[in-house]
Structures are given as structure tokens and as C-alpha cells.
């Protein structure tokens, strides 16, 4: 079926984690540094597929309410509503074409003390990997920024949208963190929060005492677990064991579904990131297929603790040299401790 083949290809190109969010230029003075941005977060949400009453997979598609039929991607355009039901159609190419070339670079015209940025501004983070041949200027910028404790700030138009970006450096790795623009963050005044009443000194003391009693030094990552996901996976396990409502490899299992792509991780994000950082650009292609690790929500996942979690524990146990240890080294050190 040629149609199905076409769909599978389309799904491939949409896989998250495989393609960089953006590839472009960081300008530092007259130095042009080509980089790629890769997501620094992953969703552990349990991804569910839609099926019909007989358990046959369904696809989520856009459809035209007039013609009552599903639409192909090339039949859909973007429009801005200028009056009720009156749209101005704007093409993606137009949104890029109206941006001056310089606005499509991360031009670091300003460096600020990294600790000065109010955390409320941060939206999400990307790792920067040097593109081919850019490893040296990348390392130079990372080292100079880390030594001076500075973050570079710039705006950049990416796929028709302008972002405010902070470039941060730690452990020899550069990150691009998307910041909110000042007018996207409301102030207490905007909300209309009232002037504060004068609190009771005794009441303040009482709360302070309770805060002190509940204080810890380090964050307990276990408390941040996604409890809903855990309950859902447990229910899945129960049904699986009981053989209840289980279908093996239904027909059309490869059906495309926009929704199903979100939250899944068909590629090993870590492998892509590691390879891109080490090999300067060509890494992403080298580790295209997933190298290791069960998919999120897979049943074997619970046994594996991430390096992050192990590191937190090592921190609590004050294990020396922990920041330089790999996941396995950490696990060993914790066992020996």
C-alpha cells in the first residue's frame, strides 16, 4: 500500500528528539558559531493510543466540517481571524521571509550575571551541540562564560516566532534557555492583588517555626514522581497479567497519529545528545535508531534509576567525586557506601 508507506515516512520525520529544535548561528562579536539545539527535557507522561470499541487503532486527523472528510496535510493552511469568520491566510515561508537575517541568529550583544535572571522567566531548556567544525569556538565560549559566571542574552526568530533566549554555560556544555518576554509575565499589579494586611507577629512566628521544622537541605526527587502515571501503569500491568482487554499486534498498528507522537520517545535522546556533543554535528545521524533503554512507560523502567536520581542520593550521602561519576559508577559508589 503506497499510501501507508507515505504515512510512515511522515511519522518518521516528526519523531521528537531526533531532529534538533533549531540549527543556526550563534554570533559572538565577529565569531560565527553554528550550533544545533536539542531538548533538555523529556516527557514521562504515559502515552495512550486511541482505539475503537473493537480495539482497532484510530488515527487523529483534521477534518473539514463543511465537507465532512479528513484532510491531507497539504490541504491545511494557517489563518488569522481579522473579523468574525474572516481570515487572512499566512504561509510559514512568509513568516520567516519578513524577518531580517540578523534576527534569525542568536547574536550575543549582552552578557549578564547568570544569577541575575529571575527564575520566573525561564520557560524551557535546550542543549547546544556544536555543528561540524565548530567545536573549538564552542569550547572557548563555554569556558569563558563559565569562568566569568555570565549568561548571554539575545532574541532570535525561529520558524516564524521570536524567542528571548539566555545562553548558559556549565560543565563545559552550553544551554539555550527560552525566557518569557517581560510583557508575558504579569505583575501582582496586573492581577490586582490587594495590599497586604498587617500580620500578627505571633502568627508569623508560628508559621516560621513550622517552616523550620519542615526544612531540608536537598530536594527529594522521589517526592516529584508522577503518581498518576505510576497508578496508570500499575492498572495496565494488572490487566496484562489477567489477560483482560489485551490485543496482540492489531492490524494497522503503524497508523499515524499526531497525538501519539507526543510524549513518546522512539529514539534514545541521551544517545543523540551524547553523540552530537562528542562528534560535533554528525552524531545525531549516527545514532538514529534507539540504541538502548525501554520506551517511557515500559514495564522494565521502574527498576532503572536515572543518573539524576542516583546523583541526588549520592549528594545526600555526600559521596566524594560524585559530579564526575557516570550512572554506573554512582550506583556502585552508593552500594559500597
Amino acid at each position, binding site marked *: 500500500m503506497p499510501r501507508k508507506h507515505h504515512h510512515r515516512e511522515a511519522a518518521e520525520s516528526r519523531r521528537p528528539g531526533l531532529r534538533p529544535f533549531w540549527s543556526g548561528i550563534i554570533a559572538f562579536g565577529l565569531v560565527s558559531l553554528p550550533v544545533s539545539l536539542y531538548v533538555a527535557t523529556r516527557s514521562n507522561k504515559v502515552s495512550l493510543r486511541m482505539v475503537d470499541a473493537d480495539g482497532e487503532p484510530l488515527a487523529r486527523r483534521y477534518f473539514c466540517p463543511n465537507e465532512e472528510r479528513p484532510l491531507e496535510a497539504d490541504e491545511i493552511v494557517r489563518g488569522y481571524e481579522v473579523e468574525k469568520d474572516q481570515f487572512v491566510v499566512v504561509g510559514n515561508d512568509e513568516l520567516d521571509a519578513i524577518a531580517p537575517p540578523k534576527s534569525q541568529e542568536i547574536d550575543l550583544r549582552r552578557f549578564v550575571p547568570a544569577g*541575575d535572571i529571575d527564575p520566573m522567566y525561564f520557560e524551557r531548556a535546550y542543549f547546544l551541540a556544536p555543528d561540524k567544525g565548530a567545536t573549538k569556538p564552542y569550547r572557548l565560549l563555554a569556558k569563558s562564560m563559565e569562568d566569568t559566571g555570565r549568561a548571554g542574552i539575545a*532574541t532570535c526568530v525561529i520558524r516564524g516566532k521570536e524567542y528571548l533566549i539566555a545562553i548558559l554555560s556549565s560543565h563545559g556544555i552550553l544551554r539555550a534557555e527560552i525566557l518569557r518576554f517581560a*510583557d508575558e509575565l504579569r505583575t501582582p499589579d496586573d*492581577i*490586582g492583588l490587594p495590599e497586604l494586611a498587617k*500580620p500578627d507577629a505571633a502568627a508569623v512566628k508560628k508559621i516560621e517555626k513550622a517552616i523550620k521544622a519542615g526544612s531540608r537541605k536537598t530536594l527529594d526527587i522521589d517526592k516529584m514522581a508522577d503518581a498518576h502515571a505510576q497508578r496508570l501503569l500499575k492498572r495496565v500491568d494488572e490487566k496484562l497479567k489477567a489477560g483482560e482487554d489485551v490485543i496482540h499486534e492489531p492490524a494497522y498498528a503503524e497508523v499515524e497519529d499526531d497525538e501519539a507522537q507526543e510524549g513518546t520517545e522512539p529514539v534514545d535522546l541521551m544517545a543523540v545528545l551524547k553523540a552530537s556533543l562528542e562528534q560535533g554535528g554528525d552524531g545525531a545521524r549516527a545514532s538514529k535508531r534507539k540504541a538502548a533503554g525501554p520506551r517511557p512507560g*515500559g514495564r522494565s523502567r521502574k527498576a532503572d534509576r536515572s543518573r539524576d536520581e542516583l546523583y541526588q542520593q549520592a549528594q545526600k550521602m555526600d559521596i566524594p567525586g560524585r559530579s564526575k561519576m557516570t550512572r554506573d559508577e554512582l550506583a556502585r559508589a552508593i552500594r559500597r557506601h
Partner: protein
Amino acid sequence: MSNGMRDKTGRCTMTARAMWKGAICFADVRVPVKFFAAVASQDVHFRLLHAKDRVPVKQAMVKPDSGDIVPYAEARRAFVTDERDWVVLNDADLQAVEPEESRDVEILEFLPPRVIDHRWYLRPYYLGPDGADKAYAALIAALDESGQEGLARWTMRKQEYIGALRLHGGYPVLVSLRHAGEVISVEELEAPGGRELDKREIDMAKQLIGMLEAPFEPADYRNEHRARILDLIETKRRGGKAKIIPFKRPKPTQDLSKALEASLKQERKSA
């Protein structure tokens, strides 16, 4: 709030409406609060249209072979295992794992500032008083005095959240957080390596950073592209065309020392 009044800059001028009500709880402290969204996106909002008739598209579940639309109420959800087993979850299964409803925003522990790294942050909400003004003011004073941040857990509209309770502009803010395992730490990765960097080049780079140093002033940065997009829409509405600016990707720098030297020279001139 699209129905609010907006001033020239598009900012909402009406007092915001609370999106949820709860109570901050720890030990024997209980402070009722109202939640307000602290983020107001200023993105230009587009709709997806069917190109032929310019009607906004809808989403539907369809049978992939026939293209027949299946009503949402008839659709079920399934979990796909690594072994390609599809486990169908019915409404009862999904309801059974839903969180219990509660108005409690439970503070699990308090931590020194920034121990909860900003990379965990998702969305901030302002907390306003809900009746007990004195208790609300006392909570703020105590948080301010202790300098600590709270790790919170609550259920809002059938969704479970974890969050960071902190002060911003003198008022309490609850920032929802990513869950455990959802932030990739730098320590998990290996930094790009190579021959030792040239000391002179490092010095020049640091000098350049120093010359470009300034305090962080968020209001200095404007979303200029937003204005360009709105201009484009206006032009096209009047029957005009987009002004195309050609884009050529600049070449990567070959001679790092030379580029740094020239940059320093240029900055000195403009200083």
C-alpha cells in the same frame, strides 16, 4: 482572558479572575488562596483552515482504512507495551486511577532558595488571599523571613501537580514543576573535548564578554517579530504582499584569533 479589556499594548487591564481555589497546608498552618495565571502569552494566534473553503478545521478520530469518523464518545484508549501488546483501558480503568479531589496544596518540605533548579519550572501562578487576609499576610511574612521555598503537591481540575512555593514581587507564587526524570541533567552528558584551548584566545573572549556586560533588564527585549507579523496580516488584508528579505546563512568562523581580535577592536571603537 480574551474577553478582558485591553490597552494599547494588548495587556489585559481588567482585574484577573481566579482560575482555582485551594489552601496552602503544612503542619497546622492552613491559608486559603486563589490561583491566578502569572503568564499571559502574547503570541499571534493563528487557526488551521481548510485551504479550499477557509473553514477552521476540526479534529476527529478516524478509521485509518476507510477514513470514517468515529465519535469521540465511542473511542477508547490503549497502552502499547514493548512487546506490541495493546491493553485497552475503559472508562472505569481511567476513573480508578484518577486522583482524589482536594482543595489542599500540601507543602511537603521547605528548601533553601534555588535548590529547586529553574529547569524543573513549568508554569507560575500567583496566589491571592481567599478570605483570611491576616493569615495570608502572615504566610508571606514568614516565607520572606525564612528565605525558604516550599515543595508543594496538589490536585487541580483532576490533574496532579508538584510545585515550588516562593515569593515574587512580595506575593506568593506557585510554580508547577516537571516530574522526576523529566529534566536531563548536564552531568549525564559529556562536554565536547579536544586539544587544550589557547590561553590568549580565552583571554580575548573573556575581555569581549566584559565589554558586553550589563545587568539583566527584561523590559529591554521586545518581541519585534510579533509586530512584523501583525503588519504582514494588515498588508495582506488590504490586498498587499509580504516583503521578502533574502536569507543567507553566514559561514562559520575559520580563524578564531583573528575574529576575536577584530571583535575587540570593533567594540572599543563603539564604546
